[in-house]
């Protein structure tokens, strides 16, 4: 009879060799990580019953206080210092653009966490994106980095491909959504966004109650769609407010804007579910 542990024994040894011990990597960790950032990932947004009965339920809005670091001790690679060259063929990095894969030998390079998500997509570090062709660049990168396309190459390169590909996926997801893009910008500026402040904003609380009632009472699709387009407009207004505030480096107001955006996004989700 077969035996599962036997089956995986070989694979386990292989994996051990393949992934450098994470704690070694962090010794070389190049940047001081931003402290306590809030991230969408820590919300139960799928289940958020934001329009449930009492105010009591609004705590579901709040971020569960988990921290996600932009760089992580689990990264296998220390990142680059000066004078970037390809680890495989020694070809110097191109003068412009992020060095994720080698132009000369196509080898996937180790993650350099000093390259931010905006750089990966050839964007300036601003809220408004130019060109809107994220999807195309995303797929271009995946063609160069995706582990499925790294055939019969070294285990080292495969683990680079795993990480680079995952990072580009995360970058794409982060930049393509307005709210996560806004939060990422704040994160790059080293700023904590604490979702609990939302509850202290009486104006927003009152509005939440109103919208909740309106959605509950809406009996037909037409009314719901009207509410939806109203909320969309507000989302756009606050998105613009974020941009202006961020450009002026008015971070306090920028944080308030992200909270508004989050709330409107949830409200739109609730309406879509009801439609």
């Amino acid at each position, binding site marked *: 009879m077969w035996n599962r542990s036997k089956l995986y024994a070989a694979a386990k040894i292989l994996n051990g060799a393949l992934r450098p011990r994470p704690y070694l990597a962090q010794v070389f960790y190049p940047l001081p990580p931003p402290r306590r950032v809030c991230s969408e990932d820590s919300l139960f947004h799928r289940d958020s019953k934001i329009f449930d009965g009492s105010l009591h339920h609004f705590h579901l809005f709040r971020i569960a206080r988990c921290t996600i*670091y932009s760089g992580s*001790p*689990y990264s296998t690679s220390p990142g680059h210092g000066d004078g970037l060259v390809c680890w495989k063929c020694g070809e110097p990095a191109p003068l412009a653009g992020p060095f994720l894969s080698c132009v000369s030998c196509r080898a996937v390079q180790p993650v350099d966490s000093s390259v931010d998500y905006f750089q990966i997509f050839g964007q300036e570090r601003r809220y408004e994106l130019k060109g809107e062709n994220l999807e195309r660049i995303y797929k271009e990168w995946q063609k160069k980095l995706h582990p499925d396309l790294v055939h019969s190459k070294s285990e080292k390169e495969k683990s680079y491909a795993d990480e680079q590909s995952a990072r580009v996926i995360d970058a794409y997801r982060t930049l393509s959504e307005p709210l996560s893009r806004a939060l990422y910008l704040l994160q790059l500026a080293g700023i904590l966004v604490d979702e609990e402040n939302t509850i202290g904003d009486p104006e927003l609380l009152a509005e939440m109650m109103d919208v909740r009632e309106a959605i509950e009472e809406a009996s037909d699709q037409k009314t719901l769609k009207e509410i939806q387009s109203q909320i969309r407009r507000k989302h756009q207004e606050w998105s613009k407010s974020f941009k202006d505030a961020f450009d002026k480096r008015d971070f306090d107001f920028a944080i308030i804007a992200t909270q508004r955006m989050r709330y409107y996004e949830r409200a739109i989700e609730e309406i879509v579910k009801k439609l």
Partner: protein
Amino acid sequence: MADEIYTVAYDSETSADERAKPVPADIAIGIDIGTSKCSFAIWNGAEVEVLQNTQIQSTIPSHVLFKDEMPPEGFSYEVPRSGAEILSGSDAFNMKRLIGRVDTDPVVKSSKMLPFMVQTFGIGQIPLIAVPVNNVWRSTTPEEVLAIFLAELKENAEHKLKRPIRKAVLTVPISFSRLQLTRIEQACAMAGIHVFRLMPEPTAVALLYAQQQQQQIIHENMGSGMEKVALIFSMGAGFCDVAITITAGGVSQIKALLGIPVGGEDMLQNIIHYLFPDFGSLEKMKSNRLLRIAVQNAIHELSSQTSVEVKVDLRDGKIKSRSLTRVEFEEVNHKVFVKCEKLIAQCLLDARLTAEDLSDVILVGGCSSVPKIRSLVLSLCKKEDSYDGIDPLEASVRGAATEGAIASGASDASGSLDLLTIQVTTTSLGIRVDGGDFVPIIRRNTSVPVRKEMVFTTANDDQAEALVVVYEGESRRAEENIILGYFKITGIPSGPRGSAEVGICMDVDTSNVLRVYGGAHLLRTQQAVSPFLEVRMPMADIGQGWSVQALVKIYGSTMDLAATPPNEVQK
């Protein structure tokens, strides 16, 4: 929208000559193990060929026959050769529905109507399955039955290809848990097959779709790599799956996956129960089998007729006869159709798309010919007709064989294998915190490869150890999800509760392997206290719900993790 054509190429500097290298010798075959039928296919160097078994059938009933003689090598089963053998009453089937499921699972409970023994105790353990051989109930397991079946498939393929088969890509239902996937791997290992990849069924279809779109662009020399959005609806005997894919230039991004264990088998059982309410006792096994087959045929005929006569010769002098109209069929199975509709609506919601965004709707699987299924899918997707470039019964196995070729490193001069599919996770993965809450770390529908980290804290003062219990599922209560494993983090620096930081990192690679890393941080730094622990999940033969009950009984909340540190520490 993309404004230029882009294609996947491993290396654009290699010439067509170099790329048309011979087929790698150990190219992986594609296997589609269906609830009721199986098929296998392989990339032959130029195209995918669906292989036939020795009886020249391209699909093989998913049955295993138990024989009473016991040969010295210990094998006493085989795949039935004929309908008469299927009727002999010593076979086991529907194993895909049963594999890796515990006896509290509703799918296992509904299997009580199958004409073999499924014994359950309702205690969250694997059910006992037995078939009658010479007046004795012989016990077996779904893995064993599947393994015998796969061994037979393998032998057939080897005979046909005249070379040993070692690797395979198998299609699996979206709703399979990681525990079930592990059981499939085990069954393959028993049959001597190394699982190269387990693909959710509709993503295999998505791969074919991407290939056809790409070939069309190359063929027609079209200047634009237009993005195509397709919804794939796949429904067979046991499972209903929906996927949404966006493809352009050979690169496909799976947007959302959603599946439920509902299929033709449920419709069959509903109709049997409706027509012959007294059906279902184990004693009348042979007549039960005859009834199944008669009703199955009747349902099949209802795809083209509006009413049908179900006539069963029970071979004991009795003949049962009932008429069945399509309207009745649709009424009796109303709940099944509602579930399908909900699935599609939710999948669109998950992908953040609407019916208007869809370029094509693809229907595959045995149930795609049921008129009601077709009409409900098309009307929800606001389409007049479905995409017709894909064979609904061979799509899954062809996709698996194509993936087998791509993953084995085969290439093709015409570029038909220059494809990349970015897959997503099918369930949320997370840990138990605050005494019983489930905190997802990697959410469902996240593109892979992915690596995510979250930092948690201790629930008690001076807590030196923390228990990390890993689950998959969508419920906010950990206990309602499926446990994949657990481990302990030790050496946490002492301090008041909420002050220590414990990092948990989850990693899913493109082969869908899950690794969980965990370790304590030094206070207020990201420096690790000691090396991180790496655990591959699911852990071997984990005892499902029992493990957690045992852990809670022994350790209570003394080793709990918390998601929310007390406020005073949050400065």
